[in-house]
Protein backbone atom coordinates (compact mmCIF):
# COMPACT_ATOMS: atom_id res chain seq x y z
CA UNK A 1 0.00 0.00 0.00
CA UNK A 2 0.88 3.66 -0.08
CA UNK A 3 1.68 3.88 3.60
CA UNK A 4 1.87 1.84 6.79
CA UNK A 5 -1.62 0.90 7.89
CA UNK A 6 -2.54 0.01 11.45
CA UNK A 7 -5.81 -1.33 12.79
CA UNK A 8 -7.79 -0.71 14.78
CA UNK A 9 -7.06 2.97 15.25
CA UNK A 10 -8.62 2.86 18.71
CA UNK A 11 -9.25 -0.05 21.04
CA UNK A 12 -10.86 -0.03 24.46
CA UNK A 13 -10.63 -3.30 26.32
CA UNK A 14 -11.33 -4.60 29.79
CA UNK A 15 -8.48 -5.50 32.07
CA UNK A 16 -7.58 -9.17 31.66
CA UNK A 17 -8.74 -9.50 28.06
CA UNK A 18 -6.45 -10.29 25.13
CA UNK A 19 -6.00 -7.84 22.25
CA UNK A 20 -4.52 -8.09 18.78
CA UNK A 21 -3.07 -5.12 16.96
CA UNK A 22 -2.41 -5.29 13.25
CA UNK A 23 0.20 -3.62 11.07
CA UNK A 24 0.31 -3.62 7.28
CA UNK A 25 3.72 -2.33 6.16
CA UNK A 26 4.57 -0.68 2.89
CA UNK A 27 4.84 -3.28 0.16
CA UNK A 28 8.44 -4.38 -0.29
CA UNK A 29 9.64 -3.15 3.10
CA UNK A 30 11.54 -6.02 4.66
CA UNK A 31 12.01 -4.45 8.09
CA UNK A 32 9.13 -3.89 10.50
CA UNK A 33 9.20 -2.41 13.98
CA UNK A 34 6.78 -2.06 16.86
CA UNK A 35 7.04 0.79 19.37
CA UNK A 36 4.97 1.82 22.35
CA UNK A 37 4.31 5.45 23.23
CA UNK A 38 2.87 6.13 26.65
CA UNK A 39 1.24 9.47 27.31
CA UNK A 40 3.89 12.19 27.49
CA UNK A 41 6.70 9.74 26.87
CA UNK A 42 9.08 9.00 24.04
CA UNK A 43 8.98 5.92 21.92
CA UNK A 44 9.76 2.60 23.56
CA UNK A 45 11.10 -0.07 21.22
CA UNK A 46 9.29 -3.39 21.45
CA UNK A 47 10.35 -5.71 18.63
CA UNK A 48 11.97 -5.73 15.20
CA UNK A 49 11.31 -8.05 12.28
CA UNK A 50 13.55 -8.66 9.30
CA UNK A 51 11.31 -10.60 6.96
CA UNK A 52 9.38 -12.98 9.19
CA UNK A 53 12.13 -13.50 11.73
CA UNK A 54 12.57 -11.38 14.82
CA UNK A 55 16.28 -10.79 15.50
CA UNK A 56 15.53 -8.47 18.37
CA UNK A 57 12.71 -9.02 20.84
CA UNK A 58 14.52 -7.29 23.66
CA UNK A 59 11.93 -4.57 24.09
CA UNK A 60 8.94 -6.76 24.81
CA UNK A 61 8.06 -5.80 28.40
CA UNK A 62 6.75 -9.17 29.56
CA UNK A 63 5.74 -12.61 28.33
CA UNK A 64 2.21 -11.29 27.91
CA UNK A 65 3.46 -9.55 24.78
CA UNK A 66 4.14 -11.44 21.56
CA UNK A 67 4.33 -10.63 17.89
CA UNK A 68 4.47 -12.45 14.62
CA UNK A 69 4.86 -11.56 10.99
CA UNK A 70 3.79 -13.40 7.89
CA UNK A 71 6.55 -13.26 5.30
CA UNK A 72 7.31 -9.63 4.52
CA UNK A 73 3.78 -8.46 5.06
CA UNK A 74 1.32 -8.20 7.91
CA UNK A 75 2.42 -8.24 11.52
CA UNK A 76 0.28 -8.81 14.60
CA UNK A 77 1.16 -7.68 18.11
CA UNK A 78 -0.75 -9.61 20.75
CA UNK A 79 -1.12 -8.56 24.36
CA UNK A 80 -2.55 -11.21 26.66
CA UNK A 81 -4.32 -10.52 29.95
CA UNK A 82 -4.11 -6.77 29.43
CA UNK A 83 -3.27 -4.51 32.37
CA UNK A 84 -3.95 -0.83 32.82
CA UNK A 85 -0.26 -0.02 32.36
CA UNK A 86 -0.54 -1.42 28.82
CA UNK A 87 -2.60 1.65 27.87
CA UNK A 88 -0.59 3.49 25.23
CA UNK A 89 -0.35 4.21 21.53
CA UNK A 90 1.25 1.30 19.72
CA UNK A 91 3.14 2.43 16.63
CA UNK A 92 4.33 0.30 13.77
CA UNK A 93 6.99 1.34 11.29
CA UNK A 94 8.54 -0.24 8.25
CA UNK A 95 11.66 0.34 6.22
CA UNK A 96 13.36 -1.13 3.17
CA UNK A 97 16.49 -1.17 5.29
CA UNK A 98 17.25 0.19 8.71
CA UNK A 99 19.49 2.95 7.42
CA UNK A 100 17.03 5.17 5.69
CA UNK A 101 14.62 6.05 8.44
CA UNK A 102 11.25 4.56 9.03
CA UNK A 103 7.76 5.17 7.72
CA UNK A 104 5.38 5.08 10.65
CA UNK A 105 1.72 4.18 10.78
CA UNK A 106 -0.78 6.35 12.63
CA UNK A 107 -0.84 3.97 15.56
CA UNK A 108 -3.40 2.10 17.61
CA UNK A 109 -4.52 3.83 20.78
CA UNK A 110 -5.14 1.11 23.36
CA UNK A 111 -7.07 1.91 26.51
CA UNK A 112 -7.39 -0.74 29.20
CA UNK A 113 -10.23 -0.07 31.63
Amino acid at each position, binding site marked *: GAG*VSQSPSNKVTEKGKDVELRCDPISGHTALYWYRQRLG*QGLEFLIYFQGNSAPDKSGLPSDRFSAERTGESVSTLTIQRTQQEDSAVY*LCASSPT*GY*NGYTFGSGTRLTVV
Partner: protein
Amino acid sequence: AQSVTQPDIHITVSEGASLELRCNYSYGATPYLFWYVQSPGQGLQLLLKYFSGDTLVQGIKGFEAEFKRSQSSFNLRKPSVHWSDAAEYFCAVGERSYIPTFGRGTSLIVHP
Protein backbone atom coordinates in the same frame (compact mmCIF):
# COMPACT_ATOMS: atom_id res chain seq x y z
CA ALA B 1 24.57 2.31 25.46
CA GLN B 2 23.32 5.10 23.28
CA SER B 3 21.04 7.74 24.72
CA VAL B 4 19.25 10.82 23.48
CA THR B 5 18.39 13.93 25.45
CA GLN B 6 15.89 16.52 24.35
CA PRO B 7 16.21 19.03 27.18
CA ASP B 8 13.15 21.07 26.31
CA ILE B 9 9.78 19.46 26.99
CA HIS B 10 7.86 22.43 25.56
CA ILE B 11 8.92 25.28 23.28
CA THR B 12 6.66 28.23 22.52
CA VAL B 13 7.37 30.53 19.59
CA SER B 14 5.46 33.16 17.68
CA GLU B 15 4.52 32.52 14.09
CA GLY B 16 7.27 33.81 11.83
CA ALA B 17 9.95 33.55 14.49
CA SER B 18 12.97 31.30 14.17
CA LEU B 19 13.13 27.95 15.90
CA GLU B 20 15.83 25.73 17.33
CA LEU B 21 15.08 22.41 19.03
CA ARG B 22 17.92 20.84 20.91
CA CYS B 23 19.09 17.26 20.79
CA ASN B 24 22.13 15.82 22.52
CA TYR B 25 23.24 12.24 22.30
CA SER B 26 25.62 9.89 23.96
CA TYR B 27 27.31 7.43 21.67
CA GLY B 28 30.82 6.17 21.09
CA ALA B 29 31.06 6.48 17.32
CA THR B 30 29.41 8.63 14.70
CA PRO B 31 25.78 7.68 14.94
CA TYR B 32 22.96 7.84 12.48
CA LEU B 33 20.78 10.79 13.49
CA PHE B 34 17.14 11.49 12.73
CA TRP B 35 14.45 14.04 13.42
CA TYR B 36 10.79 13.05 13.28
CA VAL B 37 7.63 15.11 13.63
CA GLN B 38 4.34 13.85 15.04
CA SER B 39 1.20 15.87 14.47
CA PRO B 40 -1.74 15.25 16.82
CA GLY B 41 -3.32 11.86 16.19
CA GLN B 42 -0.76 10.98 13.53
CA GLY B 43 2.21 8.70 13.23
CA LEU B 44 5.74 9.98 13.04
CA GLN B 45 7.05 11.52 9.84
CA LEU B 46 10.75 11.65 9.02
CA LEU B 47 11.95 15.25 8.67
CA LEU B 48 15.61 14.60 7.95
CA LYS B 49 18.49 12.28 8.65
CA TYR B 50 22.27 12.36 8.93
CA PHE B 51 24.52 9.42 8.20
CA SER B 52 27.76 11.00 7.00
CA GLY B 53 29.15 13.82 4.87
CA ASP B 54 27.99 17.41 5.07
CA THR B 55 27.10 18.15 8.66
CA LEU B 56 24.30 20.56 7.70
CA VAL B 57 21.33 18.52 6.57
CA GLN B 58 18.29 19.86 4.77
CA GLY B 59 14.93 18.24 5.35
CA ILE B 60 11.32 18.59 4.39
CA LYS B 61 9.04 21.48 5.35
CA GLY B 62 11.94 23.95 5.46
CA PHE B 63 13.73 22.29 8.38
CA GLU B 64 17.46 21.79 8.70
CA ALA B 65 19.73 20.26 11.33
CA GLU B 66 23.42 20.50 12.05
CA PHE B 67 25.55 17.68 13.37
CA LYS B 68 28.22 18.95 15.76
CA ARG B 69 30.49 16.12 16.83
CA SER B 70 32.35 18.22 19.40
CA GLN B 71 29.09 19.01 21.18
CA SER B 72 27.38 15.67 20.54
CA SER B 73 24.43 17.61 19.24
CA PHE B 74 22.03 17.49 16.34
CA ASN B 75 19.82 20.55 16.74
CA LEU B 76 16.84 21.15 14.49
CA ARG B 77 16.26 24.62 13.08
CA LYS B 78 13.76 26.52 10.99
CA PRO B 79 14.16 30.20 10.08
CA SER B 80 10.45 31.08 10.13
CA VAL B 81 7.86 28.96 11.90
CA HIS B 82 4.33 28.47 10.56
CA TRP B 83 1.29 27.67 12.70
CA SER B 84 1.10 24.27 11.01
CA ASP B 85 4.50 23.38 12.51
CA ALA B 86 2.88 22.95 15.93
CA ALA B 87 3.56 19.31 16.77
CA GLU B 88 5.74 16.96 18.77
CA TYR B 89 9.32 16.60 17.56
CA PHE B 90 11.48 13.58 18.25
CA CYS B 91 15.21 13.21 17.84
CA ALA B 92 16.56 9.69 17.34
CA VAL B 93 20.03 8.20 17.40
CA GLY B 94 20.87 4.93 15.74
CA GLU B 95 23.68 2.75 14.60
CA ARG B 96 24.14 -0.25 12.39
CA SER B 97 21.83 -2.17 14.68
CA TYR B 98 18.91 -0.59 12.80
CA ILE B 99 17.09 0.31 15.95
CA PRO B 100 17.37 3.94 16.96
CA THR B 101 16.83 5.28 20.42
CA PHE B 102 14.26 8.05 20.55
CA GLY B 103 14.28 11.08 22.77
CA ARG B 104 11.25 11.95 24.89
CA GLY B 105 10.16 14.61 22.44
CA THR B 106 9.72 18.38 22.42
CA SER B 107 6.27 19.85 22.05
CA LEU B 108 6.22 22.93 19.83
CA ILE B 109 3.52 25.51 20.45
CA VAL B 110 3.09 28.27 17.90
CA HIS B 111 1.38 31.52 18.86
CA PRO B 112 -0.27 33.60 16.15
